């Protein structure tokens, strides 16, 4: 098809609406492969935005390409757990089979191979995205077969379906997922109660947000419900399905197999706060879920559970759109997510105003985690008392935990809050002795093998729901180094401490890894951590130093055994700097080297 037609079709599909820019860019790129300068110009004209603004959005997201990315774009998940499962060697093998270098498009424009932060498949890696379709459980044999298919330019549709299979790996269910759910029942119960009583029910249940921070859901909703509306405005319900924290994948399971619980929870939220518009912000890595989710939404419309006159009640209007992200971890931050929903780079906003009063397009907006909405649905269905009886005093209900790494049965486990780490690990089957457990991903907490008695709840170790397990054979320094690079890659670049500080962190970790570190460098790391925690603009920057600081405190020998003994060592190696000169002069004799005394 003519590129212009592709662009114009995407523009028309989204009514030339600039706030839908992300979807316009994605739909265009899905057909054209990349976003050429002419494409950007055309889209800018189409939405009536300055060209540079469109380019700014395209340049922000990892999954938008302003340069050609070839017919096959293969992005390997670079989560530490994928690495432990052998992703780096497999990527190398693929590059060799295709005769190319990571991060560089092949000369013939055939393929591009690189890494991407994490794709939410920690329980079935090594995993990768092939033209943004998820592939799991890679093996050397699969890599070889895949290289063959690529060389023969076989279309993705003809590749073995088995390669694209994503398992739920739901290993243990509880009050949230253990029972069947009949769509509409929870919504009817909420309707019978009325909005005020429904809000009181959520408050009485003690529900706290499942995204990690644990803010009381009812308080957020109350603030939004009380926020004044200007003419033409509505309140907005946003489901944060940007599950980007490496090691977390429970929302993937909820969206795949329990979408009704989530959508119904959103609809109850809309009824409770008086919202007419809803969004699911789905991370780009979960592109493969899009069609199924759209189908579920459509079915719910047909069942009278979405759209105008929900449950046959006049004036109960609410609908949900799915907005697909494009590879930017920072969009998990609620105000960055809202910027992204408006078609802009996902940069966290200055606050106040808070989203509950001025969120999406200046309208009062609540942003809640996928799992929070599922909980809302069950609370509406079964009542606050039932919910409040589960878990602990400060952390009611149950929690979905994504368990990955060195365990026999990686997957999703549902436990009441207050469960000990040891109990979860026992169920997941620890093979070896446990050296460390990373709770809540890179921005979370590192526990040592001695701390497994600690409990997962807001009273002790709060969690967004991820446990990455490292046995005694693992190198905790390398774990922290992976996290340092993760933050350096995902910093939005807005504020100085995070933009530069995460880079310095990553460089220092590389320097230490290369055997050039000194005590001096180890002192720098906590200094940087304090600066980031104290001056960064958003939570990403505040926590970017956490994993380094925690591993440095708890696993210091892993750092120290790599140090040169001196107090200070420069990052550069004088002799190595001469290598180009040696190459040019064809010399390799002793006098051409600087030798340390």
């Amino acid at each position, binding site marked *: 098809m003519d590129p212009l037609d592709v662009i114009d079709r995407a523009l028309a599909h989204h009514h030339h609406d600039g706030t839908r820019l992300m979807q316009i860019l994605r739909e265009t790129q899905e057909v054209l492969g990349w976003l050429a*300068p*002419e494409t*950007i*110009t055309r889209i800018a004209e189409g939405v009536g935005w*300055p*060209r*540079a*603004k469109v*380019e*700014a*959005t395209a*340049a*922000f*997201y*990892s999954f938008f390409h302003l340069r050609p990315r070839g017919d096959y774009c293969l992005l390997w998940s670079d989560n530490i757990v994928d690495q432990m499962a052998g992703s780096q060697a497999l990527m190398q093998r693929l590059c060799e089979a295709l005769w190319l270098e990571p991060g560089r498009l092949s000369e013939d424009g055939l393929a591009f191979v690189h890494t991407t932060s994490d794709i939410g498949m920690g329980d079935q890696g090594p995993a990768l995205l092939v033209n943004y379709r998820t592939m799991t459980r890679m093996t050397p044999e699969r890599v070889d077969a895949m290289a063959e298919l690529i060389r023969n330019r076989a279309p993705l549709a003809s590749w073995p379906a088995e390669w694209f299979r994503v398992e739920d790996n739901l290993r243990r269910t509880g009050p949230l997922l253990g029972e069947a759910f009949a769509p509409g029942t929870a919504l009817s119960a909420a309707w019978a109660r009325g909005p005020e009583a429904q809000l009181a029910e959520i408050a009485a249940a003690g529900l706290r947000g499942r995204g990690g921070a644990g803010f009381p859901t009812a308080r957020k909703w109350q603030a939004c419900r009380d926020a004044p509306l200007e003419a033409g405005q509505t309140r907005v319900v946003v489901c944060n399905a940007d599950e980007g924290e490496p090691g977390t994948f429970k929302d993937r399971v909820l969206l795949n197999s329990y979408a009704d619980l989530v959508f119904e929870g959103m609809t109850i939220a809309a009824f409770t706060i008086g919202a007419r518009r809803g969004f699911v912000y789905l991370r780009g890595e979960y592109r493969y879920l899009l069609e199924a989710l759209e189908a579920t939404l459509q079915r719910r419309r047909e069942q009278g559970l979405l759209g105008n006159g929900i449950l046959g009640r006049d004036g109960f209007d609410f609908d949900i759109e799915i907005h697909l992200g494009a590879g*930017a971890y920072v969009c998990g931050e609620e105000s960055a997510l809202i910027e992204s929903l408006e078609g802009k*780079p996902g940069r966290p906003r*200055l606050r106040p105003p808070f989203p509950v009063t001025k969120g999406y397009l200046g309208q009062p907006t609540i942003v809640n985690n996928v799992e929070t909405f599922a909980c809302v649905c069950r609370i509406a269905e079964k009542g606050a008392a039932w919910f409040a009886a589960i878990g602990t005093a400060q952390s009611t209900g149950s929690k979905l935990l994504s368990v990955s790494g060195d365990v026999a049965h990686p997957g999703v486990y549902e436990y009441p809050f207050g469960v000990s780490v040891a109990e979860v690990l026992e169920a997941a089957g620890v093979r070896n002795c446990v050296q460390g457990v990373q709770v809540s991903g890179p921005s979370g907490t590192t526990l040592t093998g001695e701390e497994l008695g600690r409990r997962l709840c807001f009273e002790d170790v709060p969690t967004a729901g991820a446990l990455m397990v490292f046995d005694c054979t693992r190198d905790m320094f390398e774990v922290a180094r992976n996290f340092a690079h993760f933050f*350096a*890659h*995902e*910093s*939005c*670049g*807005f*504020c*100085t*401490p995070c*933009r*530069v*500080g*995460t*880079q*310095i962190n990553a*460089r220092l970790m590389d320097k230490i890894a290369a055997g050039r570190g000194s005590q001096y460098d180890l002192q720098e790391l906590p*200094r940087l951590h304090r*600066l980031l925690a*104290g*001056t*960064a*603009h958003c939570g990403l920057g505040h926590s970017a130093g956490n994993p380094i600081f925690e591993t440095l405190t708890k696993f210091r020998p892993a750092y120290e055994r790599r140090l040169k003994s001196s107090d200070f060592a420069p*990052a550069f190696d004088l002799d190595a700097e001469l290598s180009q000169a040696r190459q040019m002069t064809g010399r390799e004799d002793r006098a051409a080297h600087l030798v340390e005394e």
Partner: protein
Amino acid sequence: MSEETTFFLDGEPIPFTAGQTILQAAHAAGRYIPHLCWHPDYKPHGSCRLCTVSIGGRSVPACATQASEGLEVANRTPELDDARRMLLQMLFVEGNHFCPSCEKSGQCLLQATAYELGMMGPHFDHFYPNRPVDASHPDVLLDFNRCILCSLCEQASARDGKFVFVMGGRGMRGRKVIINSASGRLADTDFALTDRAANVCPVGVILKKRVGFSVPYGQRRYDRAPVSVAQAQEASRE
């Protein structure tokens, strides 16, 4: 009913009117809070974090935090100035700053702030990024080696109604000022020397051609007085 509204900056009372930020009010009162990305004519951006002050032990950006009655704000404490020096060092190593040969030297806010805070050296390893200059425009040179990503050019150009400069990209390598043309060159935009955006850059990125060094080193804005004094004088003239 009292009309008096004041907060306290390092113990000194600062008057303010409702809606003013801490930095706005302090600036108007001739008190200096270090800052780079804030400019009295534009909305606070909150990106440089130089203006970080402390309220009850909590760090906040003074440029984006509303003043309120009786607030006790710590500003020039040794801890805060230490953090500021580190932020300055980060900005210096992130770009390529050759002060002795820079046309902006002596009137550059970054350089002046580094002097003000007693920054003696870069401390961190230099990044030496590769940021090409754009000399395509007949009247203006763009040298992004010195860009501190403060967004003032973006805001000024939006006011001009031209959107010549837009902040885009992500992270240390990606984040940059995007020029509003398909070629990415300034010559292919409608930028003009008379634009507000031509005069707003606090460092030496947006430079007028053919007027370089017309004021000799030694007689420039921050050569005559440190930034804290110069700004207080300017504020009292406003």
